[in-house]
């Protein structure tokens, strides 16, 4: 227990969907709070309310980093706000041991018309730093932000990236025991990101307990050892980060609504939904990045077709929109009589892709006219995560070190 800095026990929070009701419940809660009636017995939902967070428990020990993951609106931020003491839980109990630092609203309290220098003092005071402490650390803050020549400029003339940099530079001076981070590493340019990462690393090494909320799995896997996955306010899984993140990735179901899955130009070729097969020829809905996979697309001819040159297009992309492959080599389609059918097979030796889910589209184009004849869209296949590498591809590189070999090192030290 002495090592546990954050302890969350059966914590829930309810929210209200409509403004008028929410305000009225606010008045009622206020009355209950002031008449000392408010307590944990209050587990009933009132009309129009829902559980934004429901019965969540977890612990974070000194030096541990917990990744809080889940889709938008799943209650991650609400949970973080309760941990930060901004709002009270409706049930349960939260115990926080030590000073809490939150990298959530960078540059909170900034007044746009005041200069960068003036705002450093305000942001510092908001984070609980005294004027003396800021005086002492001012040079360091300016250096970290790389904004030395803009310190006398009003913050309203800063770019949004510069404002965040200044805010982070101040926040980096905190010396917390517990650090809460909400989607913070997405800001700034690459150079600045390196600094942010190193600040968090340094805190991690010194034994700070950290909670990170992020949709960016790369960052989650970079820092976290444990994780919890919340969905609709409820805890879906907790444990080692790899287990939690792979469950989350498999769970993301995005259905592309509003268009037909299989389209064609009316010239006769119609394709059905694709199926995926492993090396044994068994149909699968999940593949490993280093295993062969075959994509079978059944087709049927609704009209007689001549023998023609075609190009097969295969579009593999993930939900972030990254494209893996597009056109294949042109070839011959022998055609046939109306009513006949067949299967178009595409074999891939190793998928290499390491994203959680892939969307595969197979299309047939006339060659060389380049007209789309038929298209089997939005076939989804899940890719099992096999390693901590959360890159988009599994390149399976080899490495070695030639110690003593002379070669000039080019690099930027930041």
């Amino acid at each position, binding site marked *: 227990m002495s090592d546990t800095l954050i302890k969350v026990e059966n914590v829930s929070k309810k929210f209200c969907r409509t403004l008028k009701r*929410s*305000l009225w*419940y*606010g*008045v009622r*809660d*206020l009355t*209950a*709070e*002031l*008449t*000392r*009636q*408010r*307590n*944990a017995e*209050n587990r009933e939902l009132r009309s129009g309310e829902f559980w934004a967070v429901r019965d969540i428990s977890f612990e974070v020990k000194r030096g541990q980093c917990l990744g809080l993951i889940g889709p938008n609106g799943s209650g991650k931020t609400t949970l973080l*706000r*309760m941990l*930060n*003491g*901004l*709002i*009270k*839980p*409706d*049930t*349960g*109990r*939260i*115990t*926080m*041991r*030590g*000073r*809490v630092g*939150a990298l*959530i*609203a960078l540059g*909170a*309290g900034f*007044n746009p*018309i*005041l200069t960068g220098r*003036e705002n450093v*003092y*305000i942001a*510092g*005071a*908001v*984070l*609980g730093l*005294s*004027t003396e402490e800021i005086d002492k650390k001012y040079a360091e803050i300016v250096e970290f932000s790389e904004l030395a020549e803009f310190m006398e400029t009003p913050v309203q003339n800063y770019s949004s990236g510069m404002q965040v940099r200044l805010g982070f530079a101040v926040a980096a001076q905190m010396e917390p*025991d517990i650090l809460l981070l909400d989607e913070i590493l997405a800001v700034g340019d690459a150079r600045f990101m390196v600094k942010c990462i190193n600040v968090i690393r340094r805190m991690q090494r010194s034994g700070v307990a950290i909670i990170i909320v992020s949709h960016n799995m790369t960052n989650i896997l970079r820092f976290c050892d444990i994780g919890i996955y919340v969905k609709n306010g409820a805890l879906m899984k907790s444990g080692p980060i790899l287990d939690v993140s792979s469950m989350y990735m498999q769970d993301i179901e995005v259905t592309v609504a509003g268009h037909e899955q299989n389209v064609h130009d009316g010239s006769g070729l119609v394709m059905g939904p694709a199926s995926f097969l492993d090396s044994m020829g068994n149909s699968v809905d999940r593949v490993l990045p280093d295993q062969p996979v075959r994509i079978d697309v059944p087709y049927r001819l609704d009209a007689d077709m001549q023998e023609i040159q075609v190009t097969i297009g295969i579009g593999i992309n993930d939900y972030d929109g990254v494209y893996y492959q597009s056109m294949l080599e042109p070839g011959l389609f022998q055609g046939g009589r109306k009513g006949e059918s067949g299967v178009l097979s595409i074999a891939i030796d190793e998928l290499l892709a390491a994203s959680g889910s892939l969307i595969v589209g197979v299309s047939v184009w006339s060659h060389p006219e380049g007209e789309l004849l038929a298209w089997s869209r939005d076939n989804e296949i899940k890719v099992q995560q096999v390693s901590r590498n959360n890159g988009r591809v599994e390149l399976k590189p080899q490495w070695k070190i030639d110690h003593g070999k002379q070669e000039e090192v080019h690099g930027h030290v930041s």
Partner: protein
Amino acid sequence: MKTTIYTPDSSLRDLSQIPGKIVSDIKAARELAWQLALRDIRAQYRQTLLGFLWAVFPALANTAIWLFIQSAGIVSVQDTALPYAVYVFSGTILWSAFSDAVNAPIEKTVAAKPMLAKINFPHEAIIISGIYQTAFNTVIKAAILIVAAVLLGITPDWSIVFLPLALLSLIFAGTTIGLALTPVGLLYTDISKALPLVMQFFMYLTPVVFTIPADGLAKIVFLANPVTPLITVARDVLTGYPPELLGLFFSVNLYMLLVIGVMWVVYRAAMPILIERMSA
């Protein structure tokens, strides 16, 4: 190591701990309150050419209007012992100290919403910074008021040393009323919309441009108004007249001291609930 526990229980459950918490939070809030006040004071006139002169322009305008109304005979105000210009100008300035203080708690808390929604800091800092800012503006106004009074032939005597105390009482009473309105005012904006109207009406029931009526219902209303003794005493010590209503002045202060204590506790307990409703 400091351990903080958050539960659904009312924060007022154990009343014995509250005074200690208030004191330690006010200590923790001092630095932030100062920085926030500095920020707001610097920012308020930075984009103006006339700067701090804007602190007195509204009072000057009000004085000009009432001098005109009086001299044109549209409304006839009872004779004042002071020159009417001094009476109205001092009244308006003293009233503005009070009314700024009434507005500050809601105004500052609303302005701090983005911070409140995301950062945990001692919320008292917001109220204290409002008091600092009102006090700062009042000092400027009072300085100009003294100069104006002297120019208009009033010679203050030794009793002017009590002016700071009288001004503080006005700010203190205003803060108390403003703080009482803040919790509900943060939920429903009706409060901030109604406040200017009410304050306008309130002003005419206070000896700002009118004198205390000699008799009738109006006299009772004027004397029942807690701001009446505060304004009267402040004006008297400024102009060297023997202070009237001194007894009332002290009882109002004592009463406000009790009320602000309660309101301070209410504000602290209310904030987490209000924050819940103010943001997503």
